[in-house]
Protein backbone atom coordinates (compact mmCIF):
# COMPACT_ATOMS: atom_id res chain seq x y z
CA UNK A 1 0.00 0.00 0.00
CA UNK A 2 1.07 3.53 -0.73
CA UNK A 3 0.30 6.16 1.89
CA UNK A 4 1.42 9.77 1.67
CA UNK A 5 0.96 12.88 3.78
CA UNK A 6 2.04 16.30 2.51
CA UNK A 7 1.76 19.53 4.50
CA UNK A 8 2.56 23.10 3.56
CA UNK A 9 2.13 26.49 5.23
CA UNK A 10 0.98 28.20 2.01
CA UNK A 11 -2.55 29.66 1.97
CA UNK A 12 -4.65 27.83 -0.66
CA UNK A 13 -8.33 28.07 -1.48
CA UNK A 14 -10.02 24.77 -0.40
CA UNK A 15 -11.75 24.39 -3.77
CA UNK A 16 -8.40 24.52 -5.60
CA UNK A 17 -6.58 22.05 -3.32
CA UNK A 18 -7.94 19.02 -5.11
CA UNK A 19 -6.97 20.17 -8.62
CA UNK A 20 -3.50 21.02 -7.35
CA UNK A 21 -3.01 17.62 -5.72
CA UNK A 22 -4.49 15.62 -8.61
CA UNK A 23 -2.18 17.35 -11.08
CA UNK A 24 0.84 16.58 -8.90
CA UNK A 25 -0.18 12.97 -8.21
CA UNK A 26 -0.76 12.25 -11.90
CA UNK A 27 2.88 13.09 -12.57
CA UNK A 28 4.33 11.37 -9.51
CA UNK A 29 2.62 8.65 -7.44
CA UNK A 30 0.51 7.55 -10.40
CA UNK A 31 3.75 7.01 -12.36
CA UNK A 32 5.35 4.33 -10.19
CA UNK A 33 5.05 0.57 -10.04
CA UNK A 34 6.80 -1.98 -7.89
CA UNK A 35 4.82 -5.14 -8.47
CA UNK A 36 1.82 -4.05 -10.57
CA UNK A 37 -0.70 -4.53 -7.75
CA UNK A 38 -3.02 -1.60 -6.96
CA UNK A 39 -3.83 -1.56 -3.25
CA UNK A 40 -7.21 -1.16 -1.56
CA UNK A 41 -5.78 1.56 0.70
CA UNK A 42 -3.65 3.90 -1.46
CA UNK A 43 -4.15 7.45 -0.21
CA UNK A 44 -2.22 10.71 -0.44
CA UNK A 45 -3.50 13.51 1.81
CA UNK A 46 -2.57 17.17 1.46
CA UNK A 47 -2.98 19.90 4.08
CA UNK A 48 -2.32 23.64 3.70
CA UNK A 49 -2.76 25.80 6.82
CA UNK A 50 -1.51 29.16 5.50
CA UNK A 51 0.56 29.69 8.67
CA UNK A 52 3.52 31.22 6.83
CA UNK A 53 1.47 33.50 4.57
CA UNK A 54 1.35 37.23 5.30
CA UNK A 55 -2.07 38.24 6.62
CA UNK A 56 -2.99 40.31 3.57
CA UNK A 57 -2.30 37.48 1.11
CA UNK A 58 -5.36 35.93 -0.51
CA UNK A 59 -5.59 32.14 -0.84
CA UNK A 60 -4.20 30.80 -4.12
CA UNK A 61 -6.89 29.48 -6.44
CA UNK A 62 -7.54 28.14 -9.93
CA UNK A 63 -10.22 29.88 -11.97
CA UNK A 64 -12.27 27.92 -14.49
CA UNK A 65 -12.21 29.27 -18.03
CA UNK A 66 -15.12 28.11 -20.19
CA UNK A 67 -14.27 27.46 -23.78
CA UNK A 68 -16.37 26.23 -26.63
CA UNK A 69 -15.34 24.62 -29.83
CA UNK A 70 -17.02 22.44 -32.46
CA UNK A 71 -17.02 19.41 -30.17
CA UNK A 72 -19.00 21.20 -27.42
CA UNK A 73 -18.28 22.99 -24.17
CA UNK A 74 -15.19 22.23 -22.13
CA UNK A 75 -13.60 23.80 -19.11
CA UNK A 76 -9.98 24.77 -18.93
CA UNK A 77 -8.27 25.99 -15.83
CA UNK A 78 -6.36 29.22 -15.45
CA UNK A 79 -3.82 29.75 -12.69
CA UNK A 80 -1.77 32.72 -11.57
CA UNK A 81 2.02 32.65 -11.43
CA UNK A 82 2.08 31.87 -7.69
CA UNK A 83 -0.16 28.86 -8.12
CA UNK A 84 1.82 27.63 -11.12
CA UNK A 85 5.01 27.98 -9.07
CA UNK A 86 3.41 26.06 -6.19
CA UNK A 87 2.20 23.38 -8.61
CA UNK A 88 5.79 22.92 -9.81
CA UNK A 89 7.07 22.69 -6.22
CA UNK A 90 4.38 20.21 -5.20
CA UNK A 91 4.84 18.06 -8.30
CA UNK A 92 8.62 17.89 -7.89
CA UNK A 93 8.22 17.16 -4.19
CA UNK A 94 5.68 14.41 -4.83
CA UNK A 95 7.96 12.90 -7.49
CA UNK A 96 10.84 12.77 -5.00
CA UNK A 97 8.61 11.05 -2.42
CA UNK A 98 7.34 8.60 -5.05
CA UNK A 99 10.89 7.76 -6.13
CA UNK A 100 11.79 6.91 -2.51
CA UNK A 101 8.98 4.35 -2.51
CA UNK A 102 10.39 2.71 -5.65
CA UNK A 103 13.88 2.68 -4.15
CA UNK A 104 12.43 0.72 -1.22
CA UNK A 105 10.54 -1.77 -3.40
CA UNK A 106 10.41 -5.15 -1.68
CA UNK A 107 13.62 -6.96 -2.63
CA UNK A 108 14.53 -4.32 -5.22
CA UNK A 109 18.16 -3.84 -6.18
CA UNK A 110 17.64 -1.34 -9.01
CA UNK A 111 15.87 1.96 -9.57
CA UNK A 112 14.67 2.13 -13.15
CA UNK A 113 13.39 5.14 -15.07
CA UNK A 114 11.36 4.29 -18.17
CA UNK A 115 11.12 7.15 -20.64
CA UNK A 116 8.93 6.67 -23.71
CA UNK A 117 8.75 9.21 -26.53
CA UNK A 118 5.89 9.24 -28.99
CA UNK A 119 4.65 11.50 -31.77
CA UNK A 120 1.04 10.32 -31.42
CA UNK A 121 -0.38 10.89 -27.93
CA UNK A 122 0.87 11.08 -24.35
CA UNK A 123 -1.57 8.28 -23.46
CA UNK A 124 0.09 5.96 -25.96
CA UNK A 125 3.54 6.77 -24.57
CA UNK A 126 2.30 6.15 -21.02
CA UNK A 127 0.60 2.87 -21.95
CA UNK A 128 3.88 1.58 -23.35
CA UNK A 129 5.82 2.75 -20.28
CA UNK A 130 3.33 1.14 -17.87
CA UNK A 131 3.43 -2.15 -19.76
CA UNK A 132 7.23 -2.29 -19.52
CA UNK A 133 7.11 -1.41 -15.81
CA UNK A 134 4.59 -4.19 -15.11
CA UNK A 135 6.40 -6.92 -17.03
CA UNK A 136 7.73 -9.56 -14.64
CA UNK A 137 10.07 -10.80 -17.38
CA UNK A 138 11.57 -7.34 -17.99
CA UNK A 139 12.02 -6.91 -14.25
CA UNK A 140 13.68 -10.28 -13.70
CA UNK A 141 15.99 -9.59 -16.67
CA UNK A 142 17.03 -6.33 -15.00
CA UNK A 143 17.72 -8.21 -11.77
CA UNK A 144 19.81 -10.68 -13.76
CA UNK A 145 21.75 -7.81 -15.42
CA UNK A 146 20.52 -8.96 -18.82
CA UNK A 147 20.08 -6.31 -21.54
CA UNK A 148 17.00 -8.11 -22.78
CA UNK A 149 15.45 -5.61 -25.19
CA UNK A 150 13.31 -8.40 -26.64
CA UNK A 151 11.27 -8.53 -23.44
CA UNK A 152 10.92 -4.73 -23.49
CA UNK A 153 9.56 -4.79 -27.05
CA UNK A 154 7.26 -7.68 -26.19
CA UNK A 155 5.76 -5.67 -23.30
CA UNK A 156 5.19 -2.65 -25.57
CA UNK A 157 3.55 -4.82 -28.18
CA UNK A 158 0.83 -6.16 -25.89
CA UNK A 159 0.31 -2.92 -23.94
CA UNK A 160 -3.37 -2.72 -23.01
CA UNK A 161 -4.91 0.26 -24.73
CA UNK A 162 -2.46 0.29 -27.59
CA UNK A 163 -3.21 -3.24 -28.75
CA UNK A 164 -6.96 -2.78 -28.20
CA UNK A 165 -6.90 0.57 -29.99
CA UNK A 166 -5.38 -1.05 -33.06
CA UNK A 167 -8.29 -3.48 -33.13
CA UNK A 168 -10.74 -0.61 -32.81
CA UNK A 169 -8.92 1.20 -35.62
CA UNK A 170 -9.42 -1.77 -37.91
CA UNK A 171 -13.11 -1.82 -37.04
CA UNK A 172 -13.29 1.94 -37.69
CA UNK A 173 -11.60 1.47 -41.02
CA UNK A 174 -14.13 -1.15 -42.08
CA UNK A 175 -16.98 1.08 -40.92
CA UNK A 176 -15.56 4.10 -42.72
CA UNK A 177 -15.37 2.11 -45.96
CA UNK A 178 -18.97 0.97 -45.66
CA UNK A 179 -20.41 4.32 -44.62
CA UNK A 180 -17.95 6.39 -46.70
CA UNK A 181 -17.32 8.58 -43.68
CA UNK A 182 -13.88 9.98 -42.78
CA UNK A 183 -11.94 7.96 -40.23
CA UNK A 184 -11.64 9.21 -36.67
CA UNK A 185 -8.37 10.99 -35.93
CA UNK A 186 -7.94 9.13 -32.63
CA UNK A 187 -8.10 5.75 -34.30
CA UNK A 188 -5.49 6.80 -36.87
CA UNK A 189 -3.21 7.88 -34.00
CA UNK A 190 -3.83 4.55 -32.26
CA UNK A 191 -2.68 2.60 -35.29
CA UNK A 192 0.43 4.75 -35.55
CA UNK A 193 1.19 4.41 -31.82
CA UNK A 194 3.66 1.57 -32.27
CA UNK A 195 5.25 0.81 -35.62
CA UNK A 196 8.11 -1.69 -35.30
CA UNK A 197 10.22 0.06 -37.95
CA UNK A 198 10.02 3.35 -36.02
CA UNK A 199 10.80 1.84 -32.61
CA UNK A 200 14.18 2.21 -30.92
CA UNK A 201 15.39 1.15 -27.45
CA UNK A 202 18.45 2.33 -25.53
CA UNK A 203 19.90 2.13 -22.04
CA UNK A 204 20.95 5.48 -20.61
CA UNK A 205 23.68 4.96 -18.00
CA UNK A 206 23.27 6.72 -14.65
CA UNK A 207 26.86 8.03 -14.75
CA UNK A 208 26.19 10.28 -17.73
CA UNK A 209 28.24 8.21 -20.17
CA UNK A 210 27.09 7.49 -23.72
CA UNK A 211 23.77 5.69 -24.27
CA UNK A 212 23.85 2.03 -25.23
CA UNK A 213 21.68 1.46 -28.28
CA UNK A 214 20.00 -1.92 -28.21
CA UNK A 215 17.53 -1.58 -31.06
CA UNK A 216 17.43 1.10 -33.76
CA UNK A 217 14.29 1.46 -35.87
CA UNK A 218 13.35 -2.16 -35.42
CA UNK A 219 16.83 -3.53 -36.13
CA UNK A 220 18.90 -5.06 -33.30
CA UNK A 221 22.30 -3.48 -32.66
CA UNK A 222 25.51 -5.40 -32.11
CA UNK A 223 25.44 -4.98 -28.32
CA UNK A 224 28.69 -4.83 -26.38
CA UNK A 225 27.80 -7.28 -23.61
CA UNK A 226 30.59 -6.06 -21.36
CA UNK A 227 29.34 -2.48 -21.62
CA UNK A 228 25.75 -3.63 -21.03
CA UNK A 229 26.86 -5.48 -17.89
CA UNK A 230 28.67 -2.38 -16.59
CA UNK A 231 25.54 -0.28 -17.05
CA UNK A 232 23.29 -2.87 -15.44
CA UNK A 233 25.56 -3.15 -12.42
CA UNK A 234 24.74 0.44 -11.49
CA UNK A 235 21.86 0.96 -9.03
CA UNK A 236 20.14 3.47 -11.32
CA UNK A 237 19.22 2.84 -14.95
CA UNK A 238 17.13 4.58 -17.59
CA UNK A 239 15.41 2.74 -20.42
CA UNK A 240 14.69 5.06 -23.33
CA UNK A 241 12.08 3.93 -25.85
CA UNK A 242 11.41 5.96 -28.97
CA UNK A 243 8.20 5.17 -30.81
CA UNK A 244 8.69 8.11 -33.20
CA UNK A 245 12.11 7.27 -34.59
CA UNK A 246 11.82 7.70 -38.35
CA UNK A 247 15.51 8.44 -38.77
CA UNK A 248 14.80 12.04 -39.73
CA UNK A 249 15.53 13.75 -36.43
CA UNK A 250 16.18 17.07 -38.19
CA UNK A 251 12.54 17.21 -39.21
CA UNK A 252 10.45 19.21 -36.73
CA UNK A 253 7.69 17.17 -35.13
CA UNK A 254 5.62 17.09 -32.00
CA UNK A 255 7.06 14.58 -29.57
CA UNK A 256 5.45 13.81 -26.24
CA UNK A 257 7.18 11.97 -23.42
CA UNK A 258 5.93 9.72 -20.61
CA UNK A 259 8.13 8.88 -17.62
CA UNK A 260 7.50 5.98 -15.26
CA UNK A 261 9.61 4.70 -12.37
CA UNK A 262 9.97 1.07 -11.38
CA UNK A 263 12.41 -1.45 -9.93
CA UNK A 264 13.65 -4.96 -10.61
CA UNK A 265 12.14 -8.20 -9.31
CA UNK A 266 14.27 -10.42 -7.08
CA UNK A 267 14.04 -13.66 -5.09
CA UNK A 268 13.61 -11.51 -2.00
CA UNK A 269 10.23 -10.22 -3.23
CA UNK A 270 8.86 -13.77 -3.21
CA UNK A 271 10.38 -14.46 0.21
CA UNK A 272 8.80 -11.33 1.75
CA UNK A 273 5.37 -11.88 0.24
CA UNK A 274 5.31 -15.62 0.78
CA UNK A 275 5.68 -14.82 4.45
CA UNK A 276 3.34 -11.79 4.75
CA UNK A 277 -0.07 -13.20 5.58
CA UNK A 278 -3.29 -12.74 7.48
Amino acid at each position, binding site marked *: *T*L*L*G*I*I*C*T*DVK*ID*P*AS*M*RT*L*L*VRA*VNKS*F*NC*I*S*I*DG*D*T*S*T*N*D*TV*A*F*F*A*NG*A*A*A*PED*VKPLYYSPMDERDDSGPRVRIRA*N*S*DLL*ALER*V*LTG*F*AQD*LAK*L*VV*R*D*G*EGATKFVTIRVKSDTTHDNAKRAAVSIARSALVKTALYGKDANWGRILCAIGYAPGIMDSREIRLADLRLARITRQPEKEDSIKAERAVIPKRTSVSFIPADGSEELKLLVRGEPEQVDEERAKQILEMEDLEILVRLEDDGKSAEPKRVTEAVFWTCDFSHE*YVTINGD*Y*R*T
Partner: protein
Amino acid sequence: ADRSIPAAKQKYLPTSGTYPKGFLAGSAFAGVKASNTKYHDLALVMSETPCPATATFTKNIFKAAPVAISKHFLAARGSEGFRGVLVNSGCANAVTGSLGLDHATTMARETDKLFNPTASDDAVPQTLVMSTGVIGQRLPIRKITAAIPKLKENVGNTHEHWLNAAKAICTTDTFPKLLSRTFTLPSHPDTTYSIAGMTKGAGMIHPNMA
Protein backbone atom coordinates in the same frame (compact mmCIF):
# COMPACT_ATOMS: atom_id res chain seq x y z
CA ALA B 1 10.35 -7.40 12.00
CA ASP B 2 13.79 -6.00 12.65
CA ARG B 3 13.61 -2.40 11.53
CA SER B 4 17.33 -1.64 11.39
CA ILE B 5 17.99 0.26 8.20
CA PRO B 6 20.19 -1.50 5.63
CA ALA B 7 23.53 0.23 4.96
CA ALA B 8 22.62 0.83 1.30
CA LYS B 9 19.48 2.74 2.30
CA GLN B 10 21.00 4.93 5.03
CA LYS B 11 21.67 7.68 2.48
CA TYR B 12 17.91 8.23 2.06
CA LEU B 13 17.35 8.97 5.73
CA PRO B 14 17.28 12.73 6.43
CA THR B 15 19.22 13.91 9.48
CA SER B 16 17.47 17.28 9.64
CA GLY B 17 14.55 19.12 8.04
CA THR B 18 12.64 22.37 7.72
CA TYR B 19 9.01 21.80 8.59
CA PRO B 20 5.93 23.91 7.80
CA LYS B 21 4.75 26.31 10.47
CA GLY B 22 1.76 25.30 12.55
CA PHE B 23 2.01 21.56 11.91
CA LEU B 24 2.85 18.91 14.50
CA ALA B 25 3.75 15.27 14.03
CA GLY B 26 4.28 12.33 16.32
CA SER B 27 3.74 8.66 17.02
CA ALA B 28 2.66 6.17 19.66
CA PHE B 29 2.60 2.44 20.33
CA ALA B 30 -0.71 0.63 20.03
CA GLY B 31 0.38 -2.94 19.24
CA VAL B 32 -1.99 -3.32 16.28
CA LYS B 33 -0.12 -6.34 14.95
CA ALA B 34 0.15 -8.98 17.65
CA SER B 35 3.77 -9.74 16.76
CA ASN B 36 4.74 -6.09 17.18
CA THR B 37 5.65 -5.50 20.79
CA LYS B 38 7.98 -2.52 20.58
CA TYR B 39 7.64 -0.33 17.46
CA HIS B 40 5.34 2.68 17.26
CA ASP B 41 2.47 1.90 14.90
CA LEU B 42 0.27 4.96 15.26
CA ALA B 43 1.16 8.29 13.65
CA LEU B 44 -0.53 11.67 13.83
CA VAL B 45 0.17 14.69 11.65
CA MET B 46 -1.92 17.69 12.60
CA SER B 47 -2.32 21.41 12.10
CA GLU B 48 -2.56 23.65 15.16
CA THR B 49 -5.49 25.41 13.49
CA PRO B 50 -8.26 24.05 11.25
CA CYS B 51 -7.17 24.12 7.61
CA PRO B 52 -8.17 23.02 4.10
CA ALA B 53 -7.35 19.45 3.15
CA THR B 54 -7.78 17.13 0.22
CA ALA B 55 -6.69 13.65 -0.81
CA THR B 56 -6.40 11.28 -3.71
CA PHE B 57 -7.62 7.72 -3.22
CA THR B 58 -7.18 4.35 -4.84
CA LYS B 59 -9.52 3.48 -7.69
CA ASN B 60 -9.57 -0.16 -6.55
CA ILE B 61 -13.24 -1.18 -6.28
CA PHE B 62 -12.67 -2.82 -2.89
CA LYS B 63 -11.77 0.40 -1.15
CA ALA B 64 -10.66 -0.05 2.45
CA ALA B 65 -12.80 1.42 5.23
CA PRO B 66 -10.47 4.37 5.98
CA VAL B 67 -10.52 5.26 2.28
CA ALA B 68 -14.31 5.30 2.14
CA ILE B 69 -14.61 7.19 5.41
CA SER B 70 -11.97 9.83 4.65
CA LYS B 71 -13.50 10.39 1.22
CA HIS B 72 -16.85 10.95 2.91
CA PHE B 73 -15.40 13.39 5.46
CA LEU B 74 -13.74 15.47 2.73
CA ALA B 75 -16.94 15.70 0.73
CA ALA B 76 -19.06 16.47 3.79
CA ARG B 77 -16.77 19.25 4.99
CA GLY B 78 -16.11 20.66 1.51
CA SER B 79 -12.36 20.18 2.12
CA GLU B 80 -12.45 22.75 4.94
CA GLY B 81 -11.82 22.73 8.68
CA PHE B 82 -9.52 19.72 9.01
CA ARG B 83 -7.00 19.24 11.78
CA GLY B 84 -4.97 16.30 10.59
CA VAL B 85 -4.62 12.64 9.80
CA LEU B 86 -4.26 9.56 12.00
CA VAL B 87 -2.49 6.53 10.53
CA ASN B 88 -2.14 3.02 11.88
CA SER B 89 0.20 0.38 10.51
CA GLY B 90 -0.09 -3.37 10.97
CA CYS B 91 -3.69 -3.77 9.79
CA ALA B 92 -5.21 -2.31 6.63
CA ASN B 93 -8.84 -2.37 7.84
CA ALA B 94 -9.68 -3.48 4.29
CA VAL B 95 -12.53 -5.80 3.29
CA THR B 96 -13.82 -5.60 6.85
CA GLY B 97 -17.46 -4.77 6.08
CA SER B 98 -19.60 -2.30 8.00
CA LEU B 99 -17.72 -2.87 11.26
CA GLY B 100 -14.58 -1.69 9.49
CA LEU B 101 -16.35 1.56 8.61
CA ASP B 102 -17.35 1.99 12.25
CA HIS B 103 -13.76 1.40 13.36
CA ALA B 104 -12.40 3.96 10.90
CA THR B 105 -14.97 6.51 12.11
CA THR B 106 -14.07 5.78 15.73
CA MET B 107 -10.38 6.42 14.95
CA ALA B 108 -11.30 9.84 13.55
CA ARG B 109 -13.67 10.78 16.40
CA GLU B 110 -11.24 9.73 19.14
CA THR B 111 -8.48 11.79 17.49
CA ASP B 112 -10.79 14.81 17.24
CA LYS B 113 -11.10 14.69 21.03
CA LEU B 114 -7.36 15.46 21.34
CA PHE B 115 -7.94 19.02 20.16
CA ASN B 116 -11.65 19.36 20.91
CA PRO B 117 -12.66 17.30 23.97
CA THR B 118 -16.30 18.34 23.59
CA ALA B 119 -16.52 17.34 19.91
CA SER B 120 -20.04 16.17 19.11
CA ASP B 121 -20.57 12.67 17.74
CA ASP B 122 -23.01 14.20 15.24
CA ALA B 123 -20.44 16.50 13.66
CA VAL B 124 -18.35 15.40 10.69
CA PRO B 125 -14.89 14.58 12.08
CA GLN B 126 -11.97 16.91 11.41
CA THR B 127 -9.49 14.05 11.16
CA LEU B 128 -8.75 11.90 8.13
CA VAL B 129 -7.73 8.30 8.74
CA MET B 130 -5.42 5.88 6.97
CA SER B 131 -4.54 2.26 7.64
CA THR B 132 -1.90 -0.02 6.17
CA GLY B 133 -0.89 -3.60 6.74
CA VAL B 134 -2.56 -6.94 6.39
CA ILE B 135 -5.82 -7.04 4.42
CA GLY B 136 -8.90 -8.94 5.62
CA GLN B 137 -8.37 -8.61 9.37
CA ARG B 138 -10.49 -6.68 11.83
CA LEU B 139 -8.82 -3.63 13.30
CA PRO B 140 -8.06 -4.05 17.03
CA ILE B 141 -9.86 -0.79 17.69
CA ARG B 142 -9.56 -0.90 21.48
CA LYS B 143 -5.77 -0.98 21.26
CA ILE B 144 -5.90 2.02 18.97
CA THR B 145 -8.35 4.11 21.01
CA ALA B 146 -6.30 3.35 24.12
CA ALA B 147 -3.16 4.67 22.43
CA ILE B 148 -4.61 7.82 20.80
CA PRO B 149 -4.41 9.96 24.02
CA LYS B 150 -0.66 9.22 24.19
CA LEU B 151 -0.26 11.10 20.91
CA LYS B 152 -1.08 14.37 22.61
CA GLU B 153 2.19 14.21 24.55
CA ASN B 154 4.18 12.80 21.66
CA VAL B 155 3.52 15.37 18.93
CA GLY B 156 5.83 18.27 18.17
CA ASN B 157 7.49 20.12 15.33
CA THR B 158 11.08 18.92 15.58
CA HIS B 159 12.79 16.69 13.03
CA GLU B 160 12.61 13.81 15.52
CA HIS B 161 8.85 14.15 15.83
CA TRP B 162 8.39 14.04 12.05
CA LEU B 163 10.81 11.15 11.69
CA ASN B 164 9.02 9.18 14.40
CA ALA B 165 5.73 9.63 12.55
CA ALA B 166 7.35 8.53 9.26
CA LYS B 167 8.69 5.41 11.00
CA ALA B 168 5.33 4.57 12.57
CA ILE B 169 3.56 4.27 9.21
CA CYS B 170 6.07 1.74 7.85
CA THR B 171 5.20 -1.92 7.25
CA THR B 172 7.70 -3.90 5.15
CA ASP B 173 9.55 -0.67 4.34
CA THR B 174 13.26 -0.82 5.12
CA PHE B 175 13.55 2.91 5.80
CA PRO B 176 11.23 5.82 6.68
CA LYS B 177 10.54 8.17 3.79
CA LEU B 178 10.52 11.78 4.91
CA LEU B 179 11.34 14.92 2.92
CA SER B 180 11.08 18.65 3.55
CA ARG B 181 12.11 21.81 1.76
CA THR B 182 11.57 25.55 1.62
CA PHE B 183 10.52 27.73 -1.31
CA THR B 184 9.23 31.16 -2.23
CA LEU B 185 6.44 32.30 -4.53
CA PRO B 186 6.88 34.96 -7.24
CA SER B 187 4.57 37.62 -5.76
CA HIS B 188 6.15 37.53 -2.27
CA PRO B 189 9.81 36.60 -2.72
CA ASP B 190 10.57 37.66 0.88
CA THR B 191 8.20 35.09 2.38
CA THR B 192 9.65 31.64 2.87
CA TYR B 193 7.22 28.74 2.78
CA SER B 194 7.87 25.12 3.73
CA ILE B 195 6.59 21.80 2.53
CA ALA B 196 7.09 18.47 4.29
CA GLY B 197 5.89 15.03 3.48
CA MET B 198 6.18 11.41 4.38
CA THR B 199 5.23 8.32 2.48
CA LYS B 200 5.30 4.58 2.96
CA GLY B 201 5.15 1.69 0.57
CA ALA B 202 7.28 -1.22 -0.53
CA GLY B 203 4.90 -3.81 -1.93
CA MET B 204 1.43 -3.85 -3.53
CA ILE B 205 2.49 -0.70 -5.29
CA HIS B 206 0.96 0.34 -8.58
CA PRO B 207 -1.03 3.41 -7.55
CA ASN B 208 -3.89 4.59 -9.70
CA MET B 209 -5.47 7.35 -7.67
CA ALA B 210 -8.00 10.02 -8.50
